């Protein structure tokens, strides 16, 4: 009986998922310009957050500097298009692969660090790579940024194309999250998150599992960076290595539910929609509100909004948590 109900729920979930997916595919027929761009940017944040979820959500390694892979993807795409004459899509793919390789090379030394030490090391790497992009001016364009070859198509269809590419990439990232969650790797990652010593004593090779997780995370982040570069056709170090993108992704992931398949995507949609429609008008307090949300999430719903929905927790139940914690 229990199984029937679970299967029923699962089937319902798939139907809703497919309907939502079709909805997003049909949406460009109804909306234009501004909203296409807003949604494309939401998709991009959802990709970054879902990718972050693989290393930070499942594995429990707070990669605050994960945005370095976004920058690597963006710059690789830009350089390959400009200096080698690659097609944009080839540049994006190579960008993703380079980001993944970069994560493997970085992971070998720094994934040995745990907790805060790892988080701080990733921040340092992000700053270091940003500095390289700044100082290597005659190749990367330095602080002035760099302009990519413009697409040879009408601007509206270009934006629609990017919309679909970002959406497809998001589906790909979510699917990967889904497959990881149910796979051997997923169990290894969650065991590492919960207790790395016990995981190793159970036969899990923690170092290689973590490196694989981080390289998958970096791959998708790098792809998103590459598409971003082509979309904006102008990049500069301060934008593509912006630590605030990673901070925002952390808020989104934790708001939605770290270590779940759909939570991070849900969180990204929620934050970006609100940010676009409401806070956009209060630019000065934008970061303040983001900070308040982060504190509230950590105290009230450490497991994210998905848990709130699944367990149908009331506001009172959440407020009681504050009381429990102050004891």
């Amino acid at each position, binding site marked *: 009986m229990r199984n029937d109900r679970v299967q029923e729920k699962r089937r319902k979930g798939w139907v809703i998922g497919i309907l939502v997916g079709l909805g997003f595919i049909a949406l460009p027929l109804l909306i234009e310009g501004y909203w296409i761009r807003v949604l494309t940017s939401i998709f991009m944040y959802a990709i970054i957050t879902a990718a972050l979820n693989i290393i930070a959500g499942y594995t429990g390694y707070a990669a605050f500097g994960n945005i370095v892979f976004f920058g690597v993807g963006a710059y690789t795409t830009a350089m390959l298009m400009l200096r080698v004459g690659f097609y944009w899509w080839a540049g994006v793919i190579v960008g993703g692969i380079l980001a993944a390789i970069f994560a493997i090379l970085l992971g070998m030394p720094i994934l040995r660090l745990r907790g805060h030490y790892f988080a701080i090391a990733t921040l340092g790497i992000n700053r270091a790579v940003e500095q390289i992009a700044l100082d290597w001016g005659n190749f990367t364009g330095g602080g002035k940024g760099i302009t990519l070859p413009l697409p040879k198509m009408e601007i509206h269809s270009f934006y629609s194309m990017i919309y679909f590419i970002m959406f497809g990439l998001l589906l790909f990232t979510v699917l990967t999250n889904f497959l990881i969650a149910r796979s051997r790797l997923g169990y290894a990652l969650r065991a590492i998150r*919960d207790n790395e010593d*016990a995981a190793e004593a*159970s036969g899990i090779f923690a170092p290689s599992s973590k490196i694989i997780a981080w390289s998958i995370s970096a791959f998708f982040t790098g792809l998103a960076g590459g598409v971003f570069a082509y979309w904006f056709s102008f990049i500069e170090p301060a934008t593509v290595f912006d630590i605030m993108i990673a901070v925002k992704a952390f808020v989104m992931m934790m708001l939605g539910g770290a270590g779940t398949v759909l939570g991070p995507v849900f969180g990204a949609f929620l934050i970006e929609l609100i940010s676009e429609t409401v806070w956009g008008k209060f630019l000065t307090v934008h970061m303040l509100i983001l900070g308040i949300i982060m504190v509230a999430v950590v105290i009230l719903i450490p497991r994210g909004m998905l848990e709130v929905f699944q367990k149908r927790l009331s506001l009172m139940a959440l407020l009681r948590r504050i009381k429990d914690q102050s004891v």
Partner: protein
Amino acid sequence: MDLLEGKSVSKQFGALKAVDQVDFHVQKGEILGLIGPNGAGKTTLVNLVTGIYPLTEGEILLDGKKINGLRPPRISRLGIARTFQIVKPFSGMTVRENVVIGSLFGKGGRERSTRTAFQEAERWIEFVRLQDYRNAPVDQINISSRKRMDLAKALAMEPNLLMLDEVMAGLNTKDIEEMMALVTRINRELKITLLVIEHVMKAVMSICDRVLVLHHGRKIADGPPREIVKDDRVIEAYLGERFAKVRKGLG
């Protein structure tokens, strides 16, 4: 025949010799008790066998092959499983998922799909009688159930050698009886060799075939439980020199 053998195994932390030139062996099929006062080096010895710490000196052999120097997961997959003195559960998972980690990554885990691993896990959950809690999050079960879950996870790894680190500590009398029966079944029915660190002497006396006593990192006695409890050095280690002398005077 020896399943596990240690040759002058030593571990030094700074100036402290936690384990000092200990020779030991675990015979295939036996239950070996490992006892000693707090700080004697029992858990350190287990951590040396599982590869958590590198040895300062000496050698550890499994089935005649050297295993010291290998990483902990590699040693686990060779067929050595353990439980922890303070259970280290995977706190974000259910009881079933905790156990499945053992069947996914233990000795035979590589050939298993996650589906068959879950079926395997079910078997071990029933073996330790946790079927009522199989879907419970681990932070919602009591200490006795947690210890049994840890045991089920270790069994799911299908070890040849299972090392239990104070699996009875913190349990009440009834739970201790059950755990003793369970440990005996593991040895008799599953033919698993056991190394048992234990402070509950009643358990040591009744389930162990042989007992190894450590004190200040050194081996001070090795023999059948009945002889061990009469050994002067063991009594001295546990109760102090004065008591040992008094006893000798009376004896």
